[in-house]
């Protein structure tokens, strides 16, 4: 895979050029936070940030998305029959996505696009995206990507990976798509000096991630042993079931399906949902298999750190972005829960 060195001026000019082929999405100040948003006009991505508050998963699986439309007009011979909706398919370039969030798409893809079934909207949402990621020179204190199979400069989920070398960007192609774009773009081949600087940046960033979480025993832990472990009572104690962790998490994908009718026209839509809420599993009869808070908290951690591990043999369904650690109002820390699960020994 090729890599190039671009001055920041060259880089900005290149983005302008790329706008001809792509809708541009990048980090943008939204109130007090940075979040990913379409960059209208010539507005440049704000690339001096640690990480966005929300993961950019919404560009593949929006928080709310139309599935079908219908009419309930009794005069219409097609009344009550659901109709497919035209979907946007234009290409989008996400500039500045963090390696962890990009890798999350690879993990979630196993759920939505697999040999058994294919979710048409997720697949299309993902296919629209080209990911130009920005390596993390300055990881957050809550980051632990290096413990879960990623890294601050991991290109496995990306098309292109940027190293910020102050005056320049060193850009590596990480996919064929990325290589084609980079070849056609400006800049010159990186020198040995540039490569050395990039390698130093990477090493420094990796070393700055203090958290070390072990996941090596999760696969071998007996499923029911972990499920029945006594530590869940203590883990769930402070949880208020607010669902913040699931909304911020780049690998939480659960959704709800709802119909809405206004006048005679209606839509079927899907919305993000959360295993933290009792309604998620409530039966019509009133019975609820996860009616207790401890059952819901356990479900979230077991899904990411045990069920997913067993089912796909692809590691844990966590990329170590640290958002849930950072924003949990009662300081539940997935790094600690993961360690408890990994170290657990049933009596």
């Amino acid at each position, binding site marked *: 895979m090729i890599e190039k060195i671009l001055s920041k001026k060259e880089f900005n000019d290149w983005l302008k050029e790329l706008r001809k082929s792509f809708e541009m999405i990048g980090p943008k100040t939204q109130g007090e936070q940075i979040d990913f948003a379409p960059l209208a006009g010539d507005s440049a991505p704000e690339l001096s940030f640690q990480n966005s508050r929300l993961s950019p998963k919404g560009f593949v699986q929006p928080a709310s998305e139309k599935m079908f439309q219908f009419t309930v007009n009794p005069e219409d011979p097609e009344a009550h029959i659901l109709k497919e909706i035209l979907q946007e398919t234009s290409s989008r370039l996400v500039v500045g996505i963090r390696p962890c969030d990009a890798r999350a798409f690879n993990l979630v893809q196993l759920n939505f696009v697999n040999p058994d079934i*294919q979710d048409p909207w997720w697949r299309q949402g993902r296919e629209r995206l080209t990911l130009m990621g920005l390596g993390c020179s300055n990881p957050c204190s809550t980051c632990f990507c290096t413990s879960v199979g990623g890294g601050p400069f991991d290109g496995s989920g990306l098309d292109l990976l940027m190293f910020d070398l102050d005056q320049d960007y060193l850009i590596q192609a990480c996919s064929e798509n990325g290589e084609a774009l980079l070849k056609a773009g400006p800049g010159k081949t990186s020198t040995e000096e540039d490569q050395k600087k990039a390698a130093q940046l990477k090493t420094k960033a990796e070393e700055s991630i203090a958290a070390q979480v072990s996941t090596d025993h999760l696969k071998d832990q007996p499923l029911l042993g972990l499920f029945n472990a006594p530590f869940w009572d203590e883990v769930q104690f402070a949880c208020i079931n607010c669902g913040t962790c699931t909304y911020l998490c780049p690998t939480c994908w659960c959704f709800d399906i709802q119909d809405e009718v206004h006048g005679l026209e209606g839509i079927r839509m899907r919305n993000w949902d959360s295993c933290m809420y009792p309604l998620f599993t409530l039966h019509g009869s009133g019975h609820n298999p996860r009616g207790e808070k401890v059952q819901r908290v356990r479900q979230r951690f077991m899904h990411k750190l045990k069920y997913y591990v067993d089912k796909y043999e692809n590691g844990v369904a966590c990329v170590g972005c640290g958002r849930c650690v950072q924003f949990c109002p009662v300081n539940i820390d997935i790094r600690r829960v993961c360690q408890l699960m990994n170290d657990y020994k049933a009596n």
Partner: protein
Amino acid sequence: MIIRPIRGGVVVENPYLPYPVRIDQVITETEDRNLKTFKFVFLNPEDEEKFAYHPGQFAELSIAGKGEIPIGIASSPTEKGFLLFTVNKTGLVTTFLHNMREGEIMGVRGPLGNWYPLDQMEGKNIVIVAGGFAFTTLRSTIVYLLNPANRSRFKDITVIYGARTPGMLIYKDELAAWEARDDIKVHITVDGTDDPDWKYNIGFVPAITEKKAPSSQDAFALVCGPPIMIKFTQPVLEKLGFSSERIIMSLENRMKCGIGLCGRCSVGPEFVCKDGPVFTLAKLNTLPKEY
């Protein structure tokens, strides 16, 4: 453009899009009027072929503007030209459906989930134990087994089916007809009745199962019913010698997508909608009891 899934290079239909159907008949099954059977006919005859199903599978019944409900398919694949679903009036969609009439248009999405492993049961005895309205996919199974093309592939078929009262039994006419046949043993029971003309059993399903003691020799048991019935039937079957690999059950959980994606019907790493609803007791013993 319209987005559809692609499998092996071929564009296939959107798995969330229901087939349009017309309500052809509505049958009130029980004296409390809480259970009605809906007979649907596909608006587009070619959709019937796409909806090729097995006994034990379910479908999402879809009402535009109300939503979808996962319901077991009560008709048998040997019955052509229609689908049957027996629906308990419980929530928003089922209540709305109970008020719909013959001729109205709605949707059916499926077939979904796995099915009873009838292929494995060829040449074996089959014992069916059911209670209340959890008899729907077992009706599908019985009709399938009794079809002349299939009956000779299986040995003895025994059915134990009970409800609270005679008026709460579903498919009453068919039950009576099966009871009169000699190629299937049917034990109908009710928890209690003051009907002096009641000519079948009185007693809870587990007790009648114990009394009739169907042999576990070379046999599979299909069990479907309310949790309390399952709880007390399981030890009876074990006592009769059925191994947990040969006790087959069907689960229910709240569902939305029906295809293993939306997350809510999970039981450990399994989804009731996609990996189930049919599980052996042996499999269930390895999973959390989150159903």
